[in-house]
């Protein structure tokens, strides 16, 4: 089983890595809504150039980016054909009731392009922001909801712990799959057989997950963990001049795109 490439953090020291996570999350949201609001080719060109610049700035290896894009190929394929054959317009080619239209080609191409932009934008955030920072950012952005008694801090803590164990879990699944394969388990074949063959992997995974949760709880208890007090952080979030600049640039981009339509 391969590591999930989407949402993988690529450690680095680029400008994007150093931005405040709250700013990055906000900007990502803005950038991800833009493709739905613009129409003119100039807008698309501008946005694409902007995102391409960000990719270059982030220093993400092209192969990693490609791998991330590949994960949505299935959906993209489906979308492509859906739009291709369901968009009404002048038929270019007709076979019985199914017609291929010029509008369909355009719509399908546009959708794929938009999907790619969305995926790249979203993965830029996760490429340049460690899961830990993401949680901090999320916690900070959700903190107003504490007034309506949403346990934001606790949720953030749970999320942090869960994220911490994702790689461990992945490693363990990988190791168990190999160990059981060495005992003749066969993970190929029909879905029913495959499902049955997952038992030798998931039973031990659950066992160790429960054991680990128990150990972690004990360790947290031993260090006096309580859920109520206000905790301070090792790294506090600060908005710097870089963050302000980033927000200004994005504002500029949005205004330009509004101008272009």
């Amino acid at each position: 089983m391969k590591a999930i490439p989407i949402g993988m953090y690529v450690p680095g020291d680029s400008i994007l890595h150093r931005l405040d996570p709250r700013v990055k999350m906000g900007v990502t949201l803005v950038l991800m809504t833009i493709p739905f609001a613009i129409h003119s080719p100039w807008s698309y060109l501008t946005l694409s150039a902007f995102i391409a610049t960000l990719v270059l700035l982030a220093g993400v290896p092209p192969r990693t980016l490609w791998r991330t894009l590949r994960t949505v190929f299935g959906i993209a394929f489906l979308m492509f054909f859906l739009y291709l054959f369901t968009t009404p317009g002048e038929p270019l080619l007709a076979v019985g009731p199914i017609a291929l239209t010029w509008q369909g080609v355009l719509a399908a191409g546009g959708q794929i392009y938009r999907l790619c932009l969305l995926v790249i934008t979203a993965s830029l955030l996760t490429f340049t922001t460690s899961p830990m920072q993401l949680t901090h950012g999320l916690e900070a952005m959700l903190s107003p909801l504490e007034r309506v008694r949403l346990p934001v801090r606790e949720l953030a803590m749970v999320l942090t712990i869960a994220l911490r164990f994702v790689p461990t879990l992945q490693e363990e699944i990988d190791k168990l799959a190999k160990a059981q394969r060495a005992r003749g388990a066969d993970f190929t074949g029909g879905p029913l057989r495959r499902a049955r063959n997952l038992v030798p992997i998931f039973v031990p995974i659950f066992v160790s997950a429960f054991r680990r949760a128990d150990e972690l709880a004990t360790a947290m208890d031993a260090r006096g963990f309580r859920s109520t007090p206000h905790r301070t952080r090792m790294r506090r979030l600060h908005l710097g001049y870089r963050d302000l600049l980033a927000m200004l640039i994005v504002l500029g981009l949005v205004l330009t795109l509004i101008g272009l339509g």
Partner: protein
Amino acid sequence: MHIRVENLTHIYNQGTPLERTALHEVNLEIEAGERIGLVGPTGSGKSTLVQHLAGLLQPTTGRVLLAGTPIHSKGATARSLRLQVGLAFQYPEDQIFEQSVFREVAFGPRNLGLDETEVKARVHWALEMVGLDPARIGPRMPFTLSGGERRRVALASILAMRPRVLILDEPTAGQDPQGRRALWEKVGQWQQETGMTLIIVSHALEELARLVERVIALRAGRVVADGPTREVLSDARLLRDIGLDVPEPVALLQALRQAGKDVRTDRLLPAEAAAEIASAWGLRRAGA
């Protein structure tokens, strides 16, 4: 079964920032029935190498041949060859999943497609080989056993497949001294009884010295030594170089030698060292 490793290179996470070369151009030749110790510091690629020998990883470049057949090829021949290599991972008890010890040990033999009588016979044999009473332990739930017992159940589940090559990756890790001693003794017995090829990854040099005839040393994914146990494990420079402790008897004899005493230093076991010292001083050992 003859094993041949040709120019084997393994790179984890190739093409990502986490890329890591675990094995680099490894070449090995292992004859049927050899007893081999695989040593090297943590991260030197020992586990990666043994997983390749069991056909569980895809080489980045190079290949592994079992009895002349590439282990990674598709098809029934390669699969049946792979199943003749038994690999016990580090902490093998972590892989236990069945509701009873009997079913756990039977998992492998059943996957081999054996009939129930044969499965039963294998399970009994394997449990006895690890020193567990099949009648008493067989019906129990694995999770009610002690850590040491679970380790032995896991090893039995591999033995029950009757592998022609048995690979143990740090089999005594996390065990108490008594459990360790018992396990080392057992491993020797298995090898004698079945004549299988034995490959043991371990840091316990003295126990290896008693059991294996050949030692392969890895450092940073390369084979840095491969030879008779006595030669490799008495090479203090090499051992220090790869970050392993020199066996005490060797260290003692070397100190004597540096102090001007004419002794051989390739004596790995305390008794051998004692005999060497006695003869250097012109003493006759009791009973000698």
